[in-house]
């Protein structure tokens, strides 16, 4: 396994394996099938978190913190060796997942490069220098004599960017200007006779460019191998996992409502107004209006309510009461009760069904007479605007939400709605209707000191 090992002087004789692997070659390790999937999912959480952060326009300092938090939350392991293994394995599994189309490759390359950039920046400068030589970047540090001769100009460049030439930056690398197009284009390096004088802290740019180019080529090769041999070879083992991974929902499944315990039937009307996301509000309003919902709607709303904390008996009472004008009690027990009990795992194979995630809800196609699905995706512009206004959004907020909708960022649209309704920010973004509910209750509770 080509893990780069940095020899740090330590009191013991052990070599401390630190840092950043370059993912040069797939590790000849044995990996358990579960780890294959779970490691990849953990890394995918990190990459999706990064994607979300970028989408929301976070500044570099915020992104750096986000990367640290995401990595800590998903990829840490008490033993450094295990952490590095997971790092490498998860990267290579995701390569398989994301090599398969141009769009997937682009996304993966972009996220991995961002991840690498921030992790590299956080390394110590000796580690960075060691990594540079590992990358075979044959750039010599500028000698003291040469440094003296260009010091003025280097200082001038720094001050033109509003910085100062700190003593620490006395280490400069001389590279052909072609290697650092970003720095040249922004006039952030001194160039002379075709050579750019790159400060240590700018070295990141050099290394990241190399990393990006390497991964880009590797993805193409991986795709070839995948289509020519691996996919077929692994069709009973790895292929199904790989194919499911890129669309998987990665958050909690909300099948066990914990935080707010139970919601009873008398609370529903109230919380529907304050804490339901638009998709569930709509279904809820429709069931009250029409005294009926078709199957898709019953599943989506029903499972959501289960996740919210509605107990089975209360659920049965709720649906029965709502359907009463159209469906007699006997008919209800015959035709609908079974399904509700089924959802709660009390019938048939007793699977405790989990409430649908946003991903799942967005992907359905509601038909005539259906009211499920994601309103940000499935409503006409007119209807969506009206619904947002009814939720209490200002016209400015409505425009912001519609902007996300036009760009097909439905979950971001819902997040903005949440933020507008609650007057507080939702950094993590909405990925699950039950998450919306829980976050909403949290905000309201902290405001009122009680369940709203």
């Amino acid at each position, binding site marked *: 396994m080509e893990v780069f090992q940095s020899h740090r002087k330590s009191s013991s004789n052990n070599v401390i394996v630190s840092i950043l692997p370059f993912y040069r070659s797939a590790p000849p390790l044995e990996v358990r099938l579960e780890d294959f999937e779970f490691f990849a999912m953990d890394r995918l959480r990190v990459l999706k978190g990064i994607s979300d952060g970028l989408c929301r326009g976070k500044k570099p300092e915020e992104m750096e913190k986000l990367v640290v938090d995401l990595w800590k939350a998903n990829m840490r392991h008490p033993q450094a060796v295990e952490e590095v293994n997971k790092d490498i394995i998860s990267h290579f599994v995701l390569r398989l997942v994301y090599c398969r189309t141009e769009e997937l490759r682009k996304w993966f390359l972009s996220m991995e490069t961002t991840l690498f950039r921030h992790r590299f920046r956080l390394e110590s400068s000796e580690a960075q220098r060691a990594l540079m030589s590992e990358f075979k970047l044959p750039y010599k540090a500028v000698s003291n004599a040469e440094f003296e001769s260009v010091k003025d*100009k280097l200082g001038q460049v720094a001050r033109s960017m*509003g910085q100062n030439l700190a003593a620490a930056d006395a280490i400069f690398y001389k590279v052909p200007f072609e290697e650092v*197009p970003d720095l040249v*284009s922004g*006039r952030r390096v001194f160039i002379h*006779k075709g050579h750019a004088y790159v400060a240590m802290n700018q070295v990141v740019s050099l290394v990241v460019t190399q990393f990006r180019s390497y991964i880009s080529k590797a993805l193409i090769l991986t795709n070839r191998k995948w289509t020519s041999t691996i996919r077929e070879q692994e069709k009973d083992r790895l292929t199904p996992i790989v194919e499911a991974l890129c669309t998987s929902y990665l958050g909690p499944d909300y099948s066990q409502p914990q935080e707010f315990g139970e919601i009873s039937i008398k609370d529903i009307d109230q919380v529907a107004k304050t804490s339901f996301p638009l998709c569930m509000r709509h279904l809820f309003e429709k069931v009250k209006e029409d005294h009926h919902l078709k199957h898709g709607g019953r599943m989506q709303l029903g499972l959501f309510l289960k996740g919210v904390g509605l107990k089975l008996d209360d659920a049965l009472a709720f649906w029965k009461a709502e359907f009463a004008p159209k469906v007699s009690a006997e008919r209800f027990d015959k035709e609908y009760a079974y399904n509700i009990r089924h959802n709660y795992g009390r019938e048939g194979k007793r699977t405790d069904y989990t409430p649908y995630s946003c991903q799942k809800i967005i992907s359905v196609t509601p038909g005539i007479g259906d009211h499920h699905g994601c309103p940000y995706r499935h409503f006409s512009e007119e209807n969506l605007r009206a619904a947002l206004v009814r939720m209490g959004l200002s016209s400015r907020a409505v425009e912001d939400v519609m902007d996300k909708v036009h760009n097909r960022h439905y979950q971001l649209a819902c997040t903005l709605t949440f933020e507008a309704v609650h007057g507080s920010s939702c950094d993590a973004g909405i990925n699950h209707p039950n998450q919306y509910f829980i976050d909403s209750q949290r905000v309201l509770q902290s405001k009122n000191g009680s369940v709203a």
Partner: protein
Amino acid sequence: MTKEQADNGRDDMVIDGPGQANAVPDEFNANYLRIYYGKLFPHADMFKWMSYGNDGKHPGCDKSYFGRREFSFTLENDIYIRFQSFNSVTELENSIKEKCPFKIDIGPVYSVDPAKRHAYAQSGDNVFTPVERELVFDIDISDYDDVRYCCTGADVCLECWPLMTIAIKVIDTSLRDDFGFNHILWVYSGRRGVHCWVCDGKARRLTNEQRAAIADYFYVYKGNENSHKKISLPGLVLYPFLARSYTEVLKGFFEAKLLPNQNLLASEERYEKILEMIPDASVASELRRRWQENKRASMSKDDINIVRWEQLKSILQSGKQKMQGLRRCVEEIVFSYTYPRLDMEVSKHMNHLLKAPFCVHPKTGRVCVPIDPNNCDEFDPTTVPTLSQLLEELNRGGPRQDAENEWDRTSLGESVTIFRTSFLQPLLKSCKEEIENSYNAKLQQSKNALSW
């Protein structure tokens, strides 16, 4: 005959007197062009240039190189033919003489002969794609219409042409000192601008990304009708290239030439444009007040523009000015009037076609002659030889025995000499060295591989 008369399409010869027997009406047409291509256009020099030393004399030569270059012709009735390629100087010359193009463009060198392009894929391994192309720049004086009052659009005179001269100085110096390029050809575009061809091997092999980086490095003037302030120079000091350009070229030219010649501060309409660029309204009002009071030119013999400019500078640069945006205001004004305005798109892509030197401009009849950057102050666009003038000169000379070097007895001779001595010969010498070195290196490599 003036240009306007020629544009009326008169065909007859005007015989004014004995000396006019050789007179050629000032026109542009296929017959004149035919003679031009037959006797004056320097086919052999163009071929030598485009071959970059690959003339077959050295074993390291790439014999396919010239044949992989794209040329495009615009024929008489605006018929445009692309992907023309030639395998020898004779083929090139014969095709030009036969087709008599009104314009010849030079494109990139492709991976294979453009004539065979359809046999190759669009992507993947075996592609038809540009592999080499000079780094080129295009500067057009009509982009400066907002700062010159003597001419507009396609017109050029000796008052405003110096804007091109200083653009050449700024860019040429930077290409050599900052980027380390040596083989740079500047060409008059025939009417209202200049083209720049950077021909070093390193330049020809630049990727699109690297070209964009260089173009961005030069990009300072960000103007359009909507912005008042088209130049923004933040930072405590100017970046070295900008500082050098300012002190060595732009400041002097602005203060001594442009300001007085274009009367930039003499009238309200014109000085308002400058006052608009001052971010501090109170400073602008102060100056406005002073100048309005002083409308009648004082008895002072100093040019009013210069007097007012000194007033402006002394207020803006006085130690009392604390406001951030004022720090660089004087430089910003100078830059906005004088800094080169490049056409970015021309430089960024390898496949951009650019007009060949020594073409004749159809609207002016002038030849696209080289400009020696070391002598660019002397260049006068109004005295560039025209097609009819050259033919007249040929007539005057009478019949000659040798058909070679006919250009020598015309005004074109000087241009061809400049082309050869200041550009082509040094370039070819350097190319030969490069071919030899690369060949020897390859020999050494294969020797090393075999010697075990």
